[in-house]
């Protein structure tokens, strides 16, 4: 069992549902990132997904796309993201994972990137454009360091496909709640219940549900169904509109 899964399972003995939040590194600035993380941790977030910006974020909707592009156009470099992540993991003691696109790892060198992430105490990775068929080396390297190559389930995934994904995954499974890109509202309905049941039947790993989670009502709905609720676009929107200090009260209101 990876360190990440152990930590999550331990937290689940105390809480009904965990919260994972997300931010784009360097957007709107590392200073704001730091304050946002502080607010998130203080208000009980269990895990944070730090997205390393990429110029072609195909799985992301307009909000996160814009954050990626602005971060890059303001001159944010990968090295700065890695150094910032090292500072953060030293200061805050919850699991941190990297979310990015495959080219960032590929260009850096897959093994070098994983080793670097290991050194700075990153617990896992979400790489939405790297299916297991293409990511054999990545999966093996991450697992050999006891880090989690987190796999993604989609509503279109069959049970057989989910089983194959789960074999390649570790830490937890990121269940995409619906079709489309990040940042649009999700209707949680009967189809969703069937989907989550399919996810459960395919793996014993904890299930995180993301895409369109915005409110306490959404989190309450997921409670008992999933293990982790993922808040992505909503906090970016909040920081854009009301500043970093609005994040704490928002997180506190979710549970």
């Amino acid at each position: 069992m990876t360190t990440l899964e152990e930590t999550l399972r331990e937290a689940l003995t105390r809480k009904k549902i965990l919260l994972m939040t997300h931010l784009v590194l360097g957007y709107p600035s590392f200073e704001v990132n730091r304050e946002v993380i502080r607010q998130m941790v203080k208000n009980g977030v269990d895990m944070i997904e730090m997205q390393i910006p990429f110029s072609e974020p195909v799985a992301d909707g307009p909000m996160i796309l814009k954050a990626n592009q602005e971060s890059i156009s303001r001159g944010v470099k990968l090295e700065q993201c890695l150094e910032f992540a090292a500072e953060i993991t030293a200061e805050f003691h919850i699991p941190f994972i990297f979310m990015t696109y495959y080219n960032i790892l590929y260009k850096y060198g897959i093994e070098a990137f994983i080793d670097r992430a290991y050194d700075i105490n990153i617990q896992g990775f979400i790489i939405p454009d790297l299916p297991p068929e293409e990511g054999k080396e990545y999966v093996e390297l991450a697992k050999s360091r006891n880090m989690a190559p987190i796999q993604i389930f989609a509503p279109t995934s069959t049970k057989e496909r989910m089983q194959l994904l789960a074999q390649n995954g570790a830490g937890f499974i990121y269940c995409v709640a619906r079709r489309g890109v990040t940042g649009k509202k999700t209707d949680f309905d009967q189809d969703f219940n069937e989907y989550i049941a399919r996810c459960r039947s395919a793996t014993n790993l904890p299930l995180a549900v993301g895409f369109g989670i915005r409110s306490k009502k959404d989190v309450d709905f997921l409670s008992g169904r999933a293990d982790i609720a993922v808040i992505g676009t909503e906090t970016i929107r909040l920081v854009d509109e009301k500043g970093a200090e609005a994040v704490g009260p928002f997180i506190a209101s979710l549970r």
Partner: protein
Amino acid sequence: MIKKGYYGHWGGAFIPEILFETFKELNVYFEEAKNDPSFWEEYLQLMSSYSCRPTPLTYAGNVSKHFGGAHIYIKREDLNHTGAHKANNVMGQGLLVKRMGKKRVIAETGAGQHGVATATMAAKFGFDCTIYMGEEDVQRQRPNVFWMEKMGATVVPVTDGSKTLKDAINEAFRDWVTNMDSTHYVLGTVCGPHPFPEMVAWFQSIIGIEAREQILKAFTKLPTRVYACVGGGSNAMGIFQGFLQDEQVGLVGVEAGGKGLSSGEHASRLAGSDASPGVAQGYKTMFLQDSDGQMLDTHSVAAGLDYIGVSPILSDLWEKGRVRFTAATDIEVMEALDLTMKKEGIIPALESAHGFVQAFKEAPDLGTEEAIVINMSGRGDKDIFTIANAYGDPSWKKFIIERAEQYKNDKE
């Protein structure tokens, strides 16, 4: 063992999980079509009745004489319906969409030719159609936007990133991950995740099959070299496939040299030294990217060549030394275009004119007993605004100003 969808170590299918089943289905339908001779027959029938296949091979006698070397032949893909080789791929995918039973198509477009071809196909087959086009390209290729809309397509200007072809592709993918049940993404070039490179190359192979027969008939022997412009690489792959097995035939891909290979403002992946291996937009190839792996802005006078990546099949042929790559600058392109219009009465698209540049450079060094073939991927009259602007044509400017005044007055 070589994995399916790989050409050497290029290609692959780096797709988000949400599209896994969609690609599985697409692969099944594509394999079925490929193995069904009646599908290709239906395709040929459609292309000979709705488009103008076989397109002619024109002997360019005047430019041949002008350069005094090899005989220059031009494969006339401009004479396809909608004015470019793009129709070959689009109509083929249209037949596939019919088989799949989908009712909506989406596409990216750079120069607008692929968008126009897709809008045409959608109109003919009764599909809903949405075209994603970078905002900068919408400006550059306004007439094509007009025709797409007239044929019933919705044109969505993409304002993200560099506002060109790569951003239009990203946006089309974002649409697809939302609407994959009803929608097929008609990718316009031999790039993207498997099976697209193979599928588009298959439909475009019709160019090379015809060209080989035609040059043998017209010149009684194979050409010394074949030239084609390379953006994503679909017209080049189309004609090259006809001659790949003929080792004595040199294959030359011409990329967008923009303002020069050392200017940083170009779109040369294989001819220059600015590109490096990467994975983006679903496939592995040589990309113009920085040391972090962020894609760079590209530049070309030709919107259709203004792209960060290149076909994985061409990266493989480049690595194996089977295809040689060169670049033509914006200025050279205008000169070649000018000469071709004046000497032959033929107007190549700005994209196609890149191939002409290199052919014209090399023709004088070849013997008069030799022939070369240039793939003219499309016609240039679509570029009238860009070309007139590049020439600084005074009478055209006057016309535009007068017409604008007239519109202004109409409004009031």
